[in-house]
């Protein structure tokens, strides 16, 4: 039996992205649906998948038009109180071959709307791989539904088949949920934060920094009424903090005339400081982030002092880029023994840097079938990510995958605090 496949950072950097081994490229092998990879495998499964994300518009409902298997795990969302907002039109074997279900959707929409004791703000029609293959024109279907119900209707494409395409499902749904916004007079002192379906942590410094220069922030996740949702189109600019929201921002620029600025999530505080400087330049202000920077720096240093050099295993089910996180931990004086992540063009830059500082770091792919045979072969003190916890249930772990999103210096501080708590819990 083959041992779990890995490659060191040094070896991978030397090969270059174009020569990444097949075992790290999900398109070239079967995909191991280990507990670590469910986020990858199902665009509707955990956290904010397409289905839950599609209900981000306040007061909206969703009609899932699909074979029963596509809607099965929606029951998980019932616990979160979504069961009154989900409806299903189940397709049979004739539907999926002939596409005859398309004529039933407007009628189903009408029946759903009539069954409610309120008028929904929107009906999201969620379709899946079947309609991707049938080439369904959902814009047309949505128009038909609107005619039948007088309720705005938007498509939600849960096309797992197109995951690596230009518009993967999670980028498509980000575009859809801003689809009801109409052009209106923009306010020079407002910006939208685009990126996630949960808000940033309350104490993220981004709010304070923008507020200090007279810019108020709006987020879809903080819109609890349809009125507050519509105010999103009054923003002067969009601040994109997750590349998956780029397509939505481009669409808003085209439709609503709202330009966007893209920034990244880092754990390395020097990069965060630099990014705030550039953001300030872009909007013509200067942010005073010195106190935030110093505070984060102090926490990082005191963590290092208290616990010494630790060996980490870093997973990818975390609110960060696992390779950037590994690089940051290495720069902060720790060791990263193993990373479980998905190598891409975007994060290969971090791998090259990591190869210089920590050439022996082993890089695994959660998705490789060989991970079925994974055994710990290196020294690890603590793990980050629920996937890393799966491989090392006996070690202290910080899941770092909360719904509310960490960002900026606050991310660094939050991680240090959670790491300390996990180690203290273990009596270290």
């Amino acid at each position, binding site marked *: 039996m083959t041992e779990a496949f890995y490659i060191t950072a040094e070896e991978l950097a030397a090969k270059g992205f174009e020569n990444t081994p097949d075992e790290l490229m999900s398109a070239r092998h*079967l995909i*191991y649906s280990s507990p670590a990879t469910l986020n990858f495998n199902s665009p509707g499964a955990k956290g904010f998948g397409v289905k839950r994300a599609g209900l981000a518009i306040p007061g909206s409902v969703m009609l899932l038009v699909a074979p029963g*298997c596509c809607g099965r795990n929606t029951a998980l969302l019932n616990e979160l109180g979504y069961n009154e907002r989900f409806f299903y039109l*189940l397709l049979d074997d004739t539907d*999926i071959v002939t596409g005859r279900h398309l004529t039933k959707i407007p009628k189903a929409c009408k029946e759903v709307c009539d069954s409610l004791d309120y008028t929904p703000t929107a009906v999201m029609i969620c379709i899946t*791989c079947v309609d991707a293959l049938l080439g369904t024109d959902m814009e047309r279907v949505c128009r038909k539904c609107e005619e039948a119900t007088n309720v705005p209707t938007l498509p939600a494409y849960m096309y797992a*088949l197109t995951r*690596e395409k230009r518009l993967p499902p999670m980028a498509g749904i980000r575009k859809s949920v801003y689809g009801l916004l109409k052009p209106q007079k923009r306010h020079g002192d407002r910006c939208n934060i685009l990126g996630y379906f949960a808000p940033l942590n309350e104490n993220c410094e981004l709010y304070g920094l923008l507020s200090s220069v007279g810019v108020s922030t709006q987020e879809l996740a903080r819109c609890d009424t349809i009125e507050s949702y519509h105010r999103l189109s009054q923003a002067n600019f969009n601040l994109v903090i997750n590349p998956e929201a780029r397509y939505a921002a481009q669409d808003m620029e085209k439709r609503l005339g709202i330009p966007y600025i893209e920034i990244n999530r880092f754990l390395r505080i020097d990069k965060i400081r630099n990014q705030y400087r550039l953001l300030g330049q872009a909007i013509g202000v200067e942010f005073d982030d010195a106190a935030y920077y110093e505070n984060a720096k102090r926490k990082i240093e005191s963590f290092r002092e208290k616990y010494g050099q630790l060996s980490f295993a870093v997973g990818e089910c975390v609110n960060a880029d696992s390779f950037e996180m590994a690089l940051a931990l290495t720069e902060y004086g720790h060791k990263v023994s193993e990373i479980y992540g998905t190598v891409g063009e975007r994060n290969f830059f971090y791998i090259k840097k990591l190869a210089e500082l920590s050439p022996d770091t082993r890089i695994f792919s959660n998705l490789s*079938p060989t991970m*079925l045979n994974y055994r710990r072969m290196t020294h690890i003190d603590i793990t980050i990510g629920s996937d890393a916890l799966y491989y090392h249930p006996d070690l202290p772990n910080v899941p770092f995958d909360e719904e509310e999103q960490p960002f900026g210096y606050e991310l660094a501080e939050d991680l240090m605090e959670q790491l300390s708590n996990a180690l203290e819990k273990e009596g270290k």
Partner: protein
Amino acid sequence: MKKLLKFISPFAPDDSGACSVLYELGGITVICDAGGCAGNVCGFDEPRWFTKKSALFSAGLRDMDAILGRDDRLVAKLAKAQQQLEREFTAVVGTPVPAVIATDYKALERMAEKRTGVPCVTVSTDGTKLYDKGEEEAYLRLFKKFAVEAFPQEKGTAAVIGATPLDTGFTCADRIAEVIKAEGYSEVKCIGLDSGLDEIRRITRFEKIFVIAPSGIRAGAYLKESFGCDVQFHSCPLPADVTDKLSKLSPSGRTLVIHQQFTANGVRELLGGDVTCASFFMMDRSAAEEGDFHIADEADLAEKAAGFDHVIGDVSLRRALPDFKGEWTDLPHFAVSGRMF
């Protein structure tokens, strides 16, 4: 409107059922999907996922694989996985994607066997049917492929077909074995639950084969016809505490039990009195009593449950009966709500 669900979530689909049967048999199982179906199976319909490892993979199909029908790529990936993991057999489970493009499973099976050198079982599920259909086909295919030899019968032994978590709510065979052993058997094996491929190969050694869910009926009939096995229906065992709780019930008026048919029958045996059994899943006429009925959908449930005073069934179904004023006793069904006992 038919097939429109307003109150309940979809039940476990056929592909989940097939995977449930194959889960512990030690092969490589490939769900022929883009990833979402595998996520549903592993993340929701397979409660053993976090406790028992299985080589259950997604084919990771992409749109061009489906449009161009690139089965050769799937087989190449499967062969590579077999090279790495060295399993006794491989299995391919269908989903809506291969159904739309009319994948030829027989050809896929032959190609896979040729490339890997080990037997391959394909189950032509399409995600539109319910879990029991997938289980039924998986059991049948497995016995046809592997149970090819008649072994000498061993006294006091019993095998159980239909013991998946979706049907029984159990992730291990202990309770089922305990109940059957109490009926005079010294060795009890649940096919696919705490047992592997060998028990399928040597199924003919068992003195008795009990079928505890409708999904096992066709496989049982095949074994009876092909090898003369002694196959018998058996009510599906319940956890001891649930049995105790149900035994203490003294429902007045008409009682409706909703579950998989053989569990519902078991509850009726416990309760006695005016009890009707119903199921959203397969129902075998020979195991039904007069008045038992199949439930087609939500609207059908609302219509047929009217007039009953007491319902015993998964509490998630109650939402579909807003006008029901009687008593409800919760009896979880994993294939309905994803809840264990």
